[in-house]
């Protein structure tokens, strides 16, 4: 026990004293969220409005971020893509998180056969390199966001399950979990009310990193031609498509890239802040 803790200094932390990184991170994410929600107001053009006579135009007063290979306004597409990418962050993280947390919780708490079976499934999944499996599944189901999410859910849960199970194994033997058993509560109640809330911190912190990974995986799939279906604007796909014009029209991939980095930064900062807050 550290000297400080003996004085109860580190234990008592008011909610108001959130770490600065958390505040900054949430501000960035919030900013993108607002932009996404009010995209139709913020974007000067229809993101999918093709203008065949004005392709690859450099940034100008009309088109602040220039136009792309189909004459679409890059600024508008970048703004509208925030919707898709934020949606991707949620859909790419939440289902794997739910699956992983459930698996980790059940296998960690119940142990025995359930644990053995779930852990074998875990072994099978984890033995595939992440990207290969995503690629294979997208190959099976065809490109597109929906299938991408299915692939992520099938693959991404393993990390959450591992994190969760490790926490659960510790909490399971804690005296408050034992106390709950001796109070006559069933496994389900104990898992949901006593184990789950206390085991969630590392999972939440990792979720932030995972969200960045989801955007990156989406971009990589876009590069291999298996990302979001055209003409949907998505940063990763915009960067991937734009890279073949990088000599002629740097703006096509530069601005969505910048957008992705800022959102990634927001997520990373939030993760960092959460880690400190929940420690």
């Amino acid at each position, binding site marked *: 026990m550290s000297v400080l803790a003996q004085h109860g200094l580190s234990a008592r932390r008011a909610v108001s004293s959130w770490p600065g990184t958390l505040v900054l991170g949430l501000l960035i994410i919030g900013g993108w969220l607002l932009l996404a929600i009010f995209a139709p107001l913020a974007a000067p053009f229809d993101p999918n409005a093709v203008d065949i006579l004005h392709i690859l135009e450099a940034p100008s007063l009309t088109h602040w971020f220039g136009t792309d290979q189909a004459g679409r306004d890059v600024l508008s597409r970048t703004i509208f893509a925030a919707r898709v990418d934020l949606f991707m962050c949620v859909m790419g993280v939440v289902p794997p998180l739910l699956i992983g947390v459930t698996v980790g919780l059940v296998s960690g708490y119940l142990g025995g056969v359930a644990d053995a079976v779930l852990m*074998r499934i875990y072994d099978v999944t984890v033995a595939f390199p992440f990207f290969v499996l995503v*690629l294979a599944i997208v190959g*099976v189901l065809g490109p597109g966001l929906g299938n991408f999410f299915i692939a992520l859910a099938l693959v991404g849960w393993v990390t959450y399950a591992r994190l969760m199970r490790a926490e659960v194994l510790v909490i399971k033997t804690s005296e408050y979990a034992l106390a709950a058993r001796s109070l006559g509560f069933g496994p389900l109640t104990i898992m949901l009310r006593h184990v789950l809330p206390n085991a969630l911190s590392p999972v939440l912190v990792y979720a932030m990193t995972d969200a960045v990974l989801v955007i990156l995986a989406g971009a990589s799939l876009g590069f291999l031609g298996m990302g979001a279906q055209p003409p949907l604007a998505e940063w990763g796909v915009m960067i991937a498509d734009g890279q073949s014009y990088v000599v002629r029209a740097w703006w096509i991939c530069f601005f969505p890239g910048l957008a992705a980095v800022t959102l990634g930064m927001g997520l990373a900062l939030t993760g960092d802040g959460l880690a400190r807050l929940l420690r």
Partner: protein
Amino acid sequence: MQTLSLLVNRLLQLLPVLLGIAIVTFLLLKLTPGDPARLLVGDRASEETLAAVRQEYGLNRPWPVQLGTYFGKLAQGDLGESIRFRKPVSGLILQFLPPTIFLVLYVVSLTVPTTLLLAIAAARNHGGWADQAIRVFGVCGFTLPVFWVAIMLSRLFGVELGWFPVSGYGTGFLEHLHHLFLPALTTSIWLVPVMVQSLRAALLEKSEADFVTAARSKGLPERGVFWRHILPNALLPTLHLLGVMVAYLIGGTIIVEAVYAVPGLGRLMVSSILSRDYSVVQGLTLFFALATVLVTLLVDIATTLIDPRVRL
């Protein structure tokens, strides 16, 4: 002896996993639309030709039969034959393995020193400007798409400056080093931030550990305390992360291999998936599973060398 015991147990545990992987992969592939015969014979082939080719490869038999045949061969240690190239899958994997292993080791040897350097600089300077700079670099390096970094580095150091080749693997050790430098650098730019973050956190945590206070109370100089006590203890979680990453890289350098035209396993995997070369995909997934287990095992052995508490 203990190592051997662990190895045997790991391999035994691996069996059901491999079986599972083989079945899952097989079913995934069977569900995939697309026909290897079509890609083999090309655009102009007629339906009759396609049927003949399917017949030739047994692709028209019911899938349980195909699966049975596959397992039968597998039991004899035969990974089968590539539909595309009519070559043994094991031979193909061996052909593509050296560049991948070289690349992975290259990445590790670029990443590990850099990680140590940056994480130590950040942790010893906790909260200072160096620490902040390293963290900002980390976030940026981590959020940039790999293919973007790869293309930019290739343009800058390959085409513009001409310092490094932009493709291939070369012949001979020195050429490998030269050719794979940019691919390895690209991967490291992504990997280093992940590792630094982990090591930095561990260093900060361990520098508050009780045994560190105890070491200080003996009057050991701060540097000695760091190198002898803080660092070794902080290395363990990062070592595990490295293991996970290396296992991932063995099949996960797809993008880098594509951009730098490295004849590695990732590239073989992608092209096999795209052309529905079932047996190669099967063989590769099994190989990746095996590699993952082996890497984990190596990490566990390394862990026991560092940490006497851990027994194999």
